[in-house]
């Protein structure tokens, strides 16, 4: 949970290089000096020097629209390129416009790919971008990918193409293995950041797994951040310990679950300067009687720790060791730790300065009450379910939510999985936590009404959009009628990302949203009764959005084709079994604006209308 990672998970400022739908000025690739008078060129150089201080994407986009001269100057000086949808623009177009890029952020698959709704091989291959960038960005330092496919060959190419390469961050990516990681470790001598976050590595046999940790150079490294809890394989611990010892700049270390507490102690001894620590498992490696483990002094020595995570196989008897650092913690991730309320309470009571807290619902409403009493400064809370099925018992409910709303008044972001909820609790949160920017409530049982009144959850979500004036991201659940969506359309003017599941009664529901939410950029809908005529209601707005995803609604090919015909710069992808007759029900729809026309790497199960 890096602070920077929140930039990836939450919705940032509007759109990448194409915020407003403006025609491409000057046709991209005009380098300086082609037909520009000398005096103008001087002014441009002055402008470039000024624009270097402009870092916000939105500001830069605005600056680029002033006039051609500003467009050129901005293009020359943009160092950080953000592409919110890798298919919205071709790599070549991007590299021709922006010549001096040092860092690139690319996002690929739609978010519902995380929930197995996008078949394997859909796309978002990094290789085509790499192919375009390698020759023209020799000074590239940073690559950050989310939901893209990156192969070992790509990793090798990165290592060989960018001599100053410093930062590789892969979030929810797939396609690579320890083979590629070894090449990065070996060849990227200036590497500062290697963050592998929730990636799916290619499966490797035991004899295929490469000991990539051992491949880092023997000399002092510039490593500042090494995150590899998702790399599931075992590794050479001594190599890691030695690596940590020769990385004086290391501030963030998150290991995988193979690391025992005894080993953790050794790592912490080598790196007392750590600010972010992912403990892996938090269990002792000694079998039998509780080993004498002086973990407390290790944590006492780590005076800079502000973020703790891991705890995957937590043995609660060792938790008291962390009490000493709790007071300094701003971020704590217990979301893989199966803890009861009794086990949580003594820890959380020490965490007075916590801003971010992720936890499993095993702590129950009682645990959340303790959180609400201790963590008055909390800004972000995520409560995950241990048993993520619809029929599970559910350990947290409206009671926990109410308690949090009363104690944590500064809350800005919440993700809450539960089985039971009431409108009253949600309304209370809307009033107690006016700073809410992100509200994601997942009532796991589909179509579940208010636990006490039996009513739909319309009023609760209505209150959220009405009272939380800063709200930009919303996920709804439970029994919801068109009324809830009407509220969202009416009051959710700042909402940029909306997730709707099993909601609404009719096309009106979607219509309210599409006509009302003028700031909407990302819309995900599943299993809701919206048909072609509702889809048409958004035609005025789709060019302003990054994407629309709909699955298991009531769309037909005819309706989707209709939209495709009306909006030539909108790519309308239907994920299909191969049938293409017009009356055919569309199971999965993914639409996004693009400057390029249909992509040429679409697999057979994707039909582009």
């Amino acid at each position: 949970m890096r602070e920077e990672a929140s930039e990836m998970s939450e919705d940032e400022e509007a759109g990448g290089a194409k915020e407003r739908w403006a025609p491409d000025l000057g046709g991209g690739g005009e380098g300086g000096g082609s037909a520009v008078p000398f005096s103008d060129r001087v002014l441009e150089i002055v402008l470039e020097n000024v624009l270097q201080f402009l870092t916000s994407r939105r500001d830069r986009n605005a600056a680029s629209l002033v006039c051609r001269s500003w467009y050129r100057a901005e293009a020359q000086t943009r160092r950080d390129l953000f592409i919110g949808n890798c298919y919205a623009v071709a790599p070549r177009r991007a590299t021709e416009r922006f010549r001096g890029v040092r860092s690139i952020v690319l996002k690929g698959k739609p978010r519902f790919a995380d929930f197995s709704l996008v078949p394997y091989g859909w796309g978002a291959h990094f290789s085509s971008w790499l192919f375009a960038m390698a020759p023209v960005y020799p000074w590239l330092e940073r690559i950050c990918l989310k939901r893209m496919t990156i192969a070992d060959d790509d990793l090798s190419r990165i290592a060989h193409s960018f001599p100053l390469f410093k930062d590789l961050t892969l979030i929810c990516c797939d396609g690579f293995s320890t083979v590629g990681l070894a090449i990065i470790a070996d060849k990227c001598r200036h590497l500062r950041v290697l963050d592998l976050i929730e990636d799916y590595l290619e499966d490797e046999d035991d004899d295929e797994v490469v000991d990539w940790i051992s491949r880092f150079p023997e000399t002092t490294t510039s490593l500042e951040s090494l995150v590899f809890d998702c790399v599931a394989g075992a590794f050479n611990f001594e190599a890691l310990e030695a690596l940590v010892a020769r990385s004086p700049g290391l501030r963030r270390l998150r290991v995988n679950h193979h690391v025992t507490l005894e080993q953790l102690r050794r790592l912490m001894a080598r790196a007392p300067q750590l600010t972010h620590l992912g403990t892996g498992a938090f269990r002792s490696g000694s079998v039998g009687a509780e080993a004498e483990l002086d973990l407390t002094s290790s944590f006492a020595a780590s005076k800079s720790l502000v973020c703790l995570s891991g705890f995957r196989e937590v043995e609660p008897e060792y938790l008291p060791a962390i009490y000493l650092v709790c007071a300094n913690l701003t971020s704590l991730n217990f979301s893989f730790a199966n803890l009861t309320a009794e086990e949580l309470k003594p820890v959380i009571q020490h965490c007075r300065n916590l801003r971010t807290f992720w936890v499993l619902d095993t702590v129950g409403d009682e645990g959340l009450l303790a959180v609400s009493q201790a963590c008055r400064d909390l800004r972000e809370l995520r409560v995950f379910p241990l048993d993520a099925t619809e029929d599970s018992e559910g350990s947290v409910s409206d009671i926990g939510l109410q308690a949090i709303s009363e104690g944590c008044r500064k809350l800005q972001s919440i993700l809450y999985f539960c089985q039971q909820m009431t409108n009253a609790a949600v309304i209370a949160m809307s009033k107690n936590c006016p700073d809410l920017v992100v509200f994601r409530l997942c009532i796991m049982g589909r179509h579940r009404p208010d636990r006490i009144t039996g009513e739909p959850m319309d009023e609760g979500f209505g209150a959220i959009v009405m009272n939380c004036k800063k709200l930009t991201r919303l996920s709804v659940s439970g029994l919801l009628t068109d009324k809830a969506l009407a509220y969202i359309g009416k009051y959710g003017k700042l909402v940029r990302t909306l997730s709707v599941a099993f909601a609404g009664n009719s096309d009106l529901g979607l219509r309210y949203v599409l006509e009302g939410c003028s700031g909407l950029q990302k819309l995900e809908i599943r299993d809701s009764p919206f048909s072609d005529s509702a889809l048409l209601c958004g035609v005025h707005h789709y060019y302003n959005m990054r994407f629309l995803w709909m699955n298991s609604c009531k769309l037909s090919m005819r309706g989707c084709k209709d939209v495709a015909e009306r909006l030539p710069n909108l790519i309308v992808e239907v994920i299909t079994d191969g049938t293409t007759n017009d009356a055919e029900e569309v199971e999965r729809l993914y639409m996004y604006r693009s400057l390029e026309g249909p992509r040429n790497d679409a697999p057979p199960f994707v039909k582009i209308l």
Partner: protein
Amino acid sequence: MKGATCYKNDLENLRATELTLRPPGIDVEEVIRSASIATKCKKRALSEKKETDENEQATEPVAKAQIVGWPPIRAYRMNSFRSRKSLVVDDNNGGIYVKVSMDGVPYLRKIDLKIYEGYEELWRALEDMFKCSSLVPVNYDEPKYAITYEDKDGDWMLVGDVPWEMFISSCKRMRIMKGCEARGQSSSA
């Protein structure tokens, strides 16, 4: 469990020749329903199930079939807990680990064939493992998936034909294929 397994007519013979996830003689419909309540029901021998089926049809409610991708939890998180549940003491040096891939799923799984007592348990485990990744709902006439395995000779065979012991000693890896491909394969054999 709901869904009678004893059809005593030609339909059964027809179905017996079709490619399914199961050995011949087991209704696909029951397979899907049973997958959804596999976590609740204890394992029972096949014969015992047949007897009690008719009795329970009227009384036992069918649990909701699990829906793909709901609740919206990343597979990474779900797998973290699932693999912990099956963390048996791993001092068995006799485990038979094979990779299982499924068309349409971005990652492979590895299972130890030794821990299953027969095909029945294997089907359940695979369905549990991949249930969140299945692409399409059931179409009884055209089963969408078939489980195949690569044997010692490098040939791809349909799982379920040979006795269990023979299977686990010769299976090198498994692949869950789309029904149309599997059909194509068998017709060319």
